[in-house]
């Protein structure tokens, strides 16, 4: 059970949070222009990396804010948290 540093509230226990899957997958602005394959790519395809992964998390039992997290899924080390809309770190 890890400790997450909510960008709005500070350090809180993991049980206050909800995981929201892979981060930085933007909903297409014009879905009707997309082919079935392109839409399916957005809708269904997720990476599930063993290692460093960009994720969405929600402080569900706290401030209810969504934010991004960079986590190493092999050892649960949290490298970084940052707010929605902020640019992902390049590395």
């Amino acid at each position, binding site marked *: *059970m*890890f*400790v997450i540093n909510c960008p709005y509230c500070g350090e809180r*226990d993991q049980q206050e949070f*909800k995981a*929201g899957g892979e981060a930085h997958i*933007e*909903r*297409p602005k*014009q*879905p*009707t222009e*997309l082919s*079935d394959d392109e*839409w*399916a790519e957005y*809708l269904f395809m997720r990476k599930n990396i063993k290692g460093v992964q960009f994720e*969405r998390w*929600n402080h*569900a039992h706290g401030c*209810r*804010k*969504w934010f991004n997290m960079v986590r190493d899924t092999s*050892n*649960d080390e949290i490298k970084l948290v940052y707010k*929605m*809309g902020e640019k992902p770190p390049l590395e």
Partner: protein
Amino acid sequence: MSANLRVKSSEYIDETHRVSFKFNGKTYYGFKGDTLASALLANDVHLVGRSFKYHRPRGIMTAGSEEPNAIVQVNDKTNRTEPNVRATEVEIYEGLEASSQNCWPNVNFDIGGINNLISPFLPAGFYYKTFMWPASFWEKYEFFIRHSAGLGKSPSEKDPDIYDHRNIHCDVLVVGAGISGILAAKNAAKNNFKTLLIDEKNELGGATIYQNKEFNKIDNQSSSDWIKKEINGLKNISNLEIKTRTSVAAYHGYNYLLARENLTDHLEKKYKNNKVRQRLLKIRAKKVILATGALERPLIFNNNDRPGIMLSTAVKKYADFFGVKCGEKNVFFTNNDSAYESALCLYNKGIKVDAIIDIRNNSNSKIVKAIEQVGIQIYWSHTVVDTNGYRRLNNISIMKLSNDGMTVTGDRINISCDCLGVAGGWTPAVHLFTQSGGKLKFDEDNNVFLPNKYPSDQISVGSCNGKFNLKEIINELSIKLKEFLKISQTDFDNIAIESEEETSKRNIWLLPSDKAIGKTKPFVDYQNDATAKDIKLALREGFRSIEHVKRYTTTGMGTDQGKLGNMHALGIIADTAGVKMGELGTTTFRPPYTPLTFGTIVGRNVGEFFDIFRRTAMNDWHIEKKAKFENVGQWKRSWYYPINGETMHQAVQRESKAARESAGILDASTLGKIDIQGSDASEFLNRVYTNAWSKLAIGKCRYGLMLNEDGMVYDDGVTTRLGENHYLMTTTTGGAANVLGKLEDYLQTEWPELDVYLTSVTDHYATASVCGPNSKKILKKIIPDLDLSDENFPHMSFKEAKINNIKCRVMRISFTGEHSYEINIQASFGKALWEKCIEAGKEYNITPYGTESMHLLRAEKGFIIVGQDTDGTMTPVDLQMDWIVSKKKYDFIGKRSLYRSDTMREDRKQLVGLLTDDPNIILEEGAQIVSELNQNPIQMLGHITSSYFSPNLNKSIALAVVKGGKDMMGKKLFIPMEDKIISVTVANPVFFDEENKRLNA
């Protein structure tokens, strides 16, 4: 049993305080301070249990939580009974009753012992191989297995005890209060770290408090005297909290640890009542210091499991700490110096030691010399090849070891003895370290796995880090502590230490016998009866992975988790397969380290707190009227209101008829309510619902359907426009929290540019829904000044009103198809509102109805219930609800998915009505639907989602999803049931008042 096995002068036993207890029905006496094990040994009881598979007699083997044999049932046939308790950990109290497990009819004569005689037929994997076939025999096998297995009995009565949880946040957690733990905790606390020190025993100090006084000195005093002063000093340190009788069960990532604190298990019954029995400590520590010590290893030799064969340090602890001699004729068997310290301790107490058998060729240690001086015979490079004595050890046979240690030579020497102390070296207790994710490395010199890579801010110190003599322990601790805590000094940096260093080592994982291995029983896992030959058999049969060998032989899978024999199992595998132990790896140590009670795990979350219920403001009224309740989400909703002994069916028929004939009232408070405000609220609703919202006038209501991005129906409900930028959305009862979460997600992450604010107001309002042809008259009585004419207050509209000066919101909306009003009022007035409606409706026979009648009434109208008629695979088109999907809107959640090739298939399951040919047969929800009966296999077309007997139509009706159902109107289908085949006809799902005339009646 008359033998007095007490040796005087133990300061830990209060001989003025005699305690009586029962074991296997017989009364014994011990003293305050005894464990059940020490008290039994003092009464010369060694045989305490039977082994799992062969039912061999087994005795007390250890003095701690690693005990594999002395597993007892405590207080059997009472509401406080507990199975699988280690006798070595039970502190005795007046009135304690304990009994042996896994033996029938009793421990001295056990029918299962026959397995021991036929044991050549019970090799590793026996259960897997034998009970596989034939399947029809399984019932017989099950009977056999259940009766011959069964480690203890679970209690059959309610647990009378209270359990608790506590969260602890500390700077430094120290696990283990031996010398390393005590010094670490003291220096952490004195350097302003908020420190918690935990130990599983009731005394601090570990083994140091009864360590040999001659050979271990600190600051020119004996180590035991020195540590006692240190322990006394701990009491005065303000930011140090100490918890004894507390065992760490699990060490998770991010330094999150769970520990069980035992508060009343050692108390007499009269002191247990109304106190917290055990407390689960949920510890979040910034830094963790593991000082968990080491476990002594047994040696693996033929028949090494007889009662009377014990770990050498256990023999020492029983003598030194509890003042009990474990035998009259003691012999030690060793591969290191530990046994010599134990032998010397016994000798100093006047207990006879006849011999020491040492597999080494020699040793020059001072302590070995001391033994030689007192005249105890030492057999160098000898090994035990066999032991005798069924219920108690009575002699051993030894032989000389060959130089390579693979065979024995010469003649057997028989030595008579009733206690054999075995010393096989030490295994650092790295269990918690590995649980935390730590990686081990193998130390070839000492044959131990040691902590290598730490996954969090923690260190291991003392013997759990492979340091076994006092000087090494304290010197290393001083260096590591300064580095870990970033402090400049400790208070024992330059202290003078004397301790004994071991000079000679020899390790043989499986000791040879003069018999072929097939004819021997060298136990590796005592609890599961796994022997060295089982492990060799597993390797012969092709198992290579240590995890597979473990499961096949069940080595290390008992309640003791293989604390004693795991290393030997690895060693034997490595030797047999010809690989290095470091390359073999080790099995995973899983939590809990020692078993936890269910009570500790659930804490206070029992009874009504196990799963919290939400209740409406009208709840007391429903209870008073003897309503039956059903759980919907977390809510308790009135299901139906039986009167005069009605069955559920009778009550629902009456309620549903009354609602259409005159008036019905439903508690609708549980529907989710979300207050939506902001200048972009209309645009937001356009994007989340399938239909258009921009043109909805203020004061009007609209039904909306919400999809997932995959096009499947997610939730539905009526939303009312309260003002220009203000809406009130209702959701299904069960979906409220998820809908709010989903909407927040879109607002925060996809459309942050929208000016919209969401607030859950579900609990703020209570809702009474009054329906039926007389609902208008009832409402007129309650709110006389509200104009209820169709012109002023038409269907699907909303009015603000006041009842007795209390503001309320009235919506004219309907889920039954009847003329109907929903009155929302501040929750604290909910019951008053309800009672007012009942009072006003009396003359119209207003009938309260529950969720079951609500479901029936809406099914008559063909209205869906999300979650009952849908299951996450239904699109609006599948539900024949194309009318609610806007073709004009450019986008909404799920729109694109409605045009995927799969969602556009004609043969998807689609919602239809079904009428049974015999109108009295009520279909079963979930029943399968077919069109052909002579197919093989029969193709399933779909299933029934809702089914009722309609009192208003006087026939059975059902909703179903059927492949291609849309084009099947009028077609005959079949429902094959266990005892009959029911024929049905596909119909329009709107069974009642298709023209919606009653809405305006």
